[in-house]
Each structure stands twice: as structure tokens, then as C-alpha cells.
């Protein structure tokens, strides 16, 4: 059987937010496909656990505690990667965060914090790794956006805005860096059973069960996704199987057509 197209043997990947959820799943998926993976996140114990699992798959790994919101730790992440592996083939900007807040209650401080966590982190990761990829004249960058970047998400205007920015950042940079053989693509997950989203949905079931029902009815597959269902897309976009794909953000939502409506006018 020939699946060499998807083979990532001995490629060097960096995955941010790799301590849990989608990021951890992507890191393990890339390792299963043959890559050596540098894992970054704020919580040391979690990335060490991910790194150990990667090592057990027979690949090399490095766990670098990193706060992706600031230039200095991001530079440290990339220089540590270069010291160990001498190159970066794949950069996955996955780290990010979210919280629920109706727009009328949004403060400037909270808005800035969210933009730093979800958008500036993508800028810093991409520009720092990208400089090396420009020298290498080769690389694949994958930004984890969200279906919220395509579909309105009442109660999370800040998050939807930041993720839409990530999608257009991806498209614009793909054009700018196409001549240098660097592909830039995005992944837009819908509701995936990560610890954070699971807590959110459970809270909804308790406080507003009718909304929880509506939420599921908006997904064609009538179920949430699992973090390990993102693996295939990450491998595809990282590998030569997507050699003619750049600037796109691929949805992985189980066929979601809208988020919750009316979430913003309740109290929560």
C-alpha cells in the first residue's frame, strides 16, 4: 500500500499548545506520521507528558515551556528547536484561549488579552519560525483557527473576530510567501471535546438545556468531534499530499452551519 504522500519521516515540527486537547493530538499525529516534534505550552508537566508519548512512538521530542503571547519565549522556542534539530519543516500555531462574555460586558483589557492570546501568538510563532523557513526556502505553517472565524458566534464576538483574523492572516501570508515555497494553511475546528469545550457544554446542559439541544441540532453529524479526529487534517496539510494547497482554512466541524443563537441575552 502506498501512502508515501502523507509520510512525514524525519521532518521537524513545532506544535504550540501541545500539552492537551487539539494541540496534543496534532503533535502525536505528526509523530505517528514520522515527524520529530517540539512541543510547547505554558504547563510544563503536560508538555513533558506529550513529549514522552512521542518518544514512545520512536520519534525525538523536546518539551519547551513557552508563553506564545510574548516575543522572548517564542524566540527561545525556535532557537532551542534549531539547536537540537537544525531546521523547522512544520510550524503549528495552535495555542490560544477563549471565554464567554456578551459584548456589552466586554472590557478593553479583556479584549486586548484575548487578541494577544489568539492572534498575536499566531503572528509571533509564524514570524519567528517563518524567518528560518525563508532561509530554508521550504516550510509548511498550519494555523489553528475556529469555525467561529466563519460563522457568527454570539457571546463570543471577541473570539470570533480574532479567529476570522487568523483565517485572513493565513490567506494573505500564503500569497506573500508562496514564491518562497512556504505554504500557509488553517484548520477551523467546530465543537471538539477538549477539556475547555466539554466544560462549556456541560455547564450549558445544566443551566440552559434547550440551548444544549439547539447546539447539537446545528451539527449535521449530531455529535461533537474528538481531538484525535484533527490528526488526519494536520498530517495532510503538513505533508506533500497538499503540495498545491496554500491559503486555505479547512473546516472540521461535522457539518456545522451555525453556532448558538441567543446565547448572548441570557445570564451565565
Amino acid at each position: 500500500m502506498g501512502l508515501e504522500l502523507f509520510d512525514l519521516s524525519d521532518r521537524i515540527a513545532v506544535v504550540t499548545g501541545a500539552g492537551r486537547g487539539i494541540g496534543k493530538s496534532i503533535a502525536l499525529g505528526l509523530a505517528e506520521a514520522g515527524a520529530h516534534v517540539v512541543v510547547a505550552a505554558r504547563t510544563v508537566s503536560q508538555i513533558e507528558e506529550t513529549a514522552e508519548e512521542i518518544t514512545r512512538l520512536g520519534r525525538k521530542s523536546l518539551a519547551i515551556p513557552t508563553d506564545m503571547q510574548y516575543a522572548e519565549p517564542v524566540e527561545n522556542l525556535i532557537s532551542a528547536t534549531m539547536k537540537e534539530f537544525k531546521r523547522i519543516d512544520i510550524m503549528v500555531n495552535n495555542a490560544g484561549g477563549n471565554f464567554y462574555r456578551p459584548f456589552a460586558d466586554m472590557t478593553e483589557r479583556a479584549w486586548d488579552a484575548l487578541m494577544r492570546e489568539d492572534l498575536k501568538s499566531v503572528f509571533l510563532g509564524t514570524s519567528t519560525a517563518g524567518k528560518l523557513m525563508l532561509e530554508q526556502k521550504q516550510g509548511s505553517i498550519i494555523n489553528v483557527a475556529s469555525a467561529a472565524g466563519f460563522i457568527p458566534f454570539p457571546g463570543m464576538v471577541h473570539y470570533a473576530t480574532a479567529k476570522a483574523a487568523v483565517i485572513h492572516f493565513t490567506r494573505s501570508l500564503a500569497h506573500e510567501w508562496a514564491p518562497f515555497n512556504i505554504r500557509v494553511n488553517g484548520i477551523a475546528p467546530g465543537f471538539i471535546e477538549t477539556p475547555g469545550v466539554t466544560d462549556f457544554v456541560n455547564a450549558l446542559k445544566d443551566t440552559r438545556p434547550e440551548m444544549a439541544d439547539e447546539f447539537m441540532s446545528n451539527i449535521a453529524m449530531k455529535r461533537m468531534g474528538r481531538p484525535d479526529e484533527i490528526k488526519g487534517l494536520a498530517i495532510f496539510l503538513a505533508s506533500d499530499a497538499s503540495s498545491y494547497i496554500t491559503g486555505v482554512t479547512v473546516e472540521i466541524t461535522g457539518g456545522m452551519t451555525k453556532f448558538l443563537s441567543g446565547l448572548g441575552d441570557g445570564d451565565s
Partner: protein
Amino acid sequence: MSLSLFDLSDRVAIVTGGSRGIGRAIALGFADAGAHLVIAARGTPDMEGAAAEVRARGRRALSVPTDVRRKAGVDNLVKRTLEEFGRIDILVNNAGTYVWSPAVEMSERAWDGMFSSNMKSVFLGSRAAARVMMKQGGGTIINISSMAGLVPDPGRTAYSAAKAGVINFTRNLAIELAPHNIRVNAIAPGLILTPGIKQEVKETRKKRPGFRTSVVGRVPMGRVGMPEELVGAAIYLASAASAYVTGTTLEVAGGLTILAD
């Protein structure tokens, strides 16, 4: 190393327009990934050649001369597939045609022809295969649309409109068929160097020197794509690797955002 997520071993796939260009590349790619193939096309010698290449890869292959614009043709394709393999796991609605014709100069007949070959064919193929997949308990359908279905392609208005139709057909059908465990997705190729495109570029160059350069100049990657570069997207969408993906259209276009000027 494990790439089992993308494995198509012993799946049965139908590829329409599978005798050449993008369809042939996808059919051979599926065979490389382990699938058995049914090649449907209008009965050219190319079709048997594609089937032979599948067999050379150690998979089973059947070629069925098919006019995908006619219900009788599509029904026969499905019937022959079931006789030979007993199931359909994957359908790729790839067959299609295009003409260059500004809308105001286009005849009603030519317009209807564009919609028969590009849109009705997708409806007929999907309906016939979905009925089988519903009984089986699942399957996956991949419709080959075009970047012309997402961005304007002046001079090919009918083609462009039909391909846009395929994209929203895909989105709708995905919702209708999700309860039956059938995923429906589309691929939107940009400028791919198929035999048809080669011919068109050659003819246009006679009239407009520098045409090729201007076409390629619109692609951020600075080159046209090869049919083989559609294979990864097709395997991704056909396999368990995309288990939580339905209703989407995947662009394979080298970053292209505008077709003609």
C-alpha cells in the same frame, strides 16, 4: 510509522471521468492507497488503460462505459458495480466538461449542456450511490467542483454557475445524508494541467501570445498544478482521516483567488 488513518484497503470506489486527467490520477491514487476501482467514462480506450494500471497495482478494477448525464447510464454503472463488488464505499463525481462562451452569446442548448454534464451528473451519481450507501450503513461522496465555482470566471459563466451549484449541493446533501453516516465533500481545483487544459492553452496561445504567462501569473505559487496533486485531497476526504468532515469544499489551487481577467 503509521499512516493507517489514510488507508483505503479493500474499499470499493467509483470514479467518473476516470479515464484521464484528474479522474485518472485520483483513481490510481486510490489504488495506491488500497482501494478497488470502478472506472466510468464515455467508453474510450483510455478507460481500459486506467483499469489496467489499477490492476498493475494489485487491486481489482472494472471499467463501465457511462454517460453520467443520463439516469439509465448512471443506474447501469451502479448495477455493474454491485454485481462485481457488492458495495460502494466511495463515489467520486468527477466527470464534467466546459466551454468558453460569454453568456450573451451562449445558446440555450449549450447552457443546458453545461448543466447536464457538470451539475445533473453530480445529482444522478450521488442519488444512485447514496441509495446503496444508506442500505450499507455508510459511505463517502466526493464532488469535483472548481475554483470557478468560488470566484468569477468570466467567459465561462455557465461552467462557473454549475460548479457553484455543485458546492452548495454538496453542503445541502451533507446535512441530508449525515444521519445515514454518509459524508459528502467537494474539491475545488484551480489551474490543473489536464489534457483538456493543455489543449485549451495551446489554442488560446495561437490567438493571444503570452496567454500562458498571464494565466500562471495569477497563481501565487507561480505554477499550474498537476493532476497527481489532487490525490492527497481525495484520499484525505475518502478515508477515516476526515471522519468529522462533511459539507466542505477543499480548494487545491496553489493559492489562486481569481481565474480570468
